[in-house]
């Protein structure tokens, strides 16, 4: 036991030795736990690699620089078979991110609409929403993916395309084709106009808030911003003489070339993920709204606040607090479920990297580890983002 007198700089109330100090102890144990855990995983990993090496299985990450030698159906970056295995990782990763982000956006929209619809006083709307939620929520996602993909398979071959808009928007078994915008000289002004509009909107919203706090006067800042963001670039675009051309898809040989294309694998996966996850979001939204007691609405009305602002300023902010945490797990689910892509051949990370690349190189441990890291980082990022959003939405006590 240390004598406190010999430690004059220590506060008089800390009479205990340093290893009995709770803060010190907890920090030490935490550091120790992390070190042991790190050592544990390091040992497993290096042991595995060593054992594989001694059995003649190639290990290490050098393969990422080798030429892949295989094609991929869809890529957001430039890619062909002369690129490397490292590039196949990026291609797969971006395809996973694309379907996850687009899926999260549509699932949120459908989910909120359906959640509110279930509470509607209109019997028909409420029933439709209920049937949607109760049926799709209870059918396994994989089956839904297969269902949408089977539907895509009934589409005609390229030569018999369905003309949604004559010669411009076409649908066939190879996907949905649309004209692609090709910016010409002078399109830069449109971009500048867009930037100006966005900055102006931010300033406007801030100013409106300040003025409202000071004087109580309201100003429709959001609608004005929307008008600016759409109107300003559009105006500049027209004045500049429409500096853009359209690249139309044309039938050449076997397939349509040019234009933009959404492949059927993407559509099937996207719809299945969105419609399935939206059912859960709808239930979360419904629960969130029901959690705000009716007294709140009555109180707002008693203060003379009209219906719209009551919903916007009183009910929704309180409901959001209940909605956000479970919503986060739905987003996480959607991102992870996107790996079912392989079942229908959508080239996501699992299909391209953990599938073809793993098989061509045989480097299972490295590739599975990299893929797991991606899903981990992706999930943690979604969580962090939603936590931040949740903090902003949380009750501010004044």
């Amino acid at each position, binding site marked *: 036991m240390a004598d406190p007198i010999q430690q004059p700089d220590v506060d008089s109330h800390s009479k205990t030795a340093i290893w009995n100090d709770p803060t010190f102890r907890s920090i030490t144990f935490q550091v120790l736990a992390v070190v042991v855990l790190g050592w544990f995983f390091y040992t497993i990993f290096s042991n595995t690699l060593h054992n594989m090496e001694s059995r003649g299985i190639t290990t290490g990450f050098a393969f990422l620089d080798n030429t892949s030698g295989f094609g991929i159906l869809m890529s957001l970056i430039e890619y062909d*078979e002369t690129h490397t295995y490292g590039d196949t990782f990026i291609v797969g990763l971006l395809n996973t991110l694309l379907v996850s982000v687009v899926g999260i956006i549509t699932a949120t929209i459908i989910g909120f609409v359906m959640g509110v619809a279930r509470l509607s006083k209109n019997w028909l709307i409420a029933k439709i929403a209920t049937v949607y939620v109760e049926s799709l929520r209870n059918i396994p996602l994989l089956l839904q993916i297969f269902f949408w993909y089977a539907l895509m398979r009934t589409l005609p071959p390229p030569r018999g395309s369905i003309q949604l808009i004559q010669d411009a928007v076409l649908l066939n078994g190879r996907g949905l084709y649309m004209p692609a915008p090709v910016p010409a000289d002078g399109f830069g002004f449109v971009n500048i106009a867009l930037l100006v509009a966005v900055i102006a909107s931010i300033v406007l919203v801030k100013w409106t808030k300040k003025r409202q706090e000071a004087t109580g006067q309201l100003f429709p800042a959001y609608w004005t911003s929307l008008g600016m963001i759409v109107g300003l670039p559009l105006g500049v675009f027209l004045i500049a003489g429409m500096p853009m051309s359209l690249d139309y898809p044309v039938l050449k040989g076997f397939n349509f070339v040019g234009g933009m294309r959404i492949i059927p694998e993407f559509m099937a996966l996207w719809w299945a993920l969105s419609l399935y996850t939206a059912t859960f979001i709808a239930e979360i939204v419904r629960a969130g709204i029901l959690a705000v007691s009716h007294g709140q609405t009555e109180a707002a009305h008693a203060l003379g606040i009209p219906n719209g602002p009551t919903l916007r300023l009183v009910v929704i902010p309180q409901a959001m607090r209940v909605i956000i945490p479970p919503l986060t797990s739905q987003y996480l689910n959607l991102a992870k479920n996107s790996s079912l892509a392989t079942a229908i*051949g959508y080239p996501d990370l699992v299909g391209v990297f953990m*599938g073809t690349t793993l098989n061509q190189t*045989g480097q299972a441990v490295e590739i599975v580890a990299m893929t797991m890291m991606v899903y981990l980082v992706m999930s943690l990022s979604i969580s962090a983002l939603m936590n931040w959003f949740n903090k902003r939405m949380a009750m501010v006590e004044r």
Partner: protein
Amino acid sequence: MKKSITVFGAMAATMIATSAFAGTLEDVTARGTLSCGVNTGLPGFSLQDDKGNWTGIDVDVCRAVAAAVLGDATKVRFVPLTAKERFTALQSGEIDMLSRNTTWTHTRDTSLGLNFAGVNYYDGQGFLVQKALGVKSAKELDGASVCIQAGTTTELNLADYFRLNGMKYSAVVYDTSDQTREGFEAARCDILTSDQSQLYAIRSKMADPTSAVVLPEVISKEPLGPVVRQGDDAWFNIVKWTLYAQVNAEEMGVTSANAMEMKTAADPNVKRLLGTEGDAGAKLGISADWAYNVVSQVGNYGEMFERNVGLKTPLAIARGLNALWNNGGLQYAPPIR
């Protein structure tokens, strides 16, 4: 998902032991059955009927090894595997050998910790095309969409062929052979590509087989053969020499029907093969009548070929490259002496 389980299984197994796989022969003898990885369903190579019986030239290779090692060709447990699962299953020790129309390539032989024990079928990659497109040659395929199976050499050959001929393609990659065929039938793609031997089988499974034609081009070399783990030379030798025994038997005219009487034939080569002279079996660590069991129970190479893929079967494939070396083919086995 089953795939990831095999992958993790492999990782876990690799972590536990380095040299646990040395004695495959001892394991198989102790267990009394051979675990053999085969295709999930490929007519002529590996197909299970509705009674659960497996048939095919790859399946017969497994049976031959069981006959050589255990004296009984029926003592096999067949493990159906997709293209993507097959190597992990072998590396992890889930199966004792792999006989699943697997192409012998440099990468697979040198970097997966595996060894190819020979070639039981010389194949090459070809194309199946929608007849309505009126295509006569693979050189006319610029811009086509191609249905293909994941984790195969086919994916790589296809890319090479189109690159070499300055053509573009878009690959639609599926996990199983059935999905690939369905994609092709639904016109998701213009062509389907795979090993030539399989194109006819795939076409025969189509709702309307006459709507597709096989193009004349063969764009690659696909030597298909059984695979074992590297580092277990005794087992490697057994699988290799079982194949050679079948080829030698065909060359010497020993068949399943006459194997018994051939045991007393005058030719010392036949005697050494059937174990009435010499110690070929002992040198492999198995019984003296190992090759007799193989030939009498499974047949010689020619019998195995004709029964599964030959001209009298629905696949109707001629011997071609798979004829014996003295008959214009490539099947050649070193002598047993």
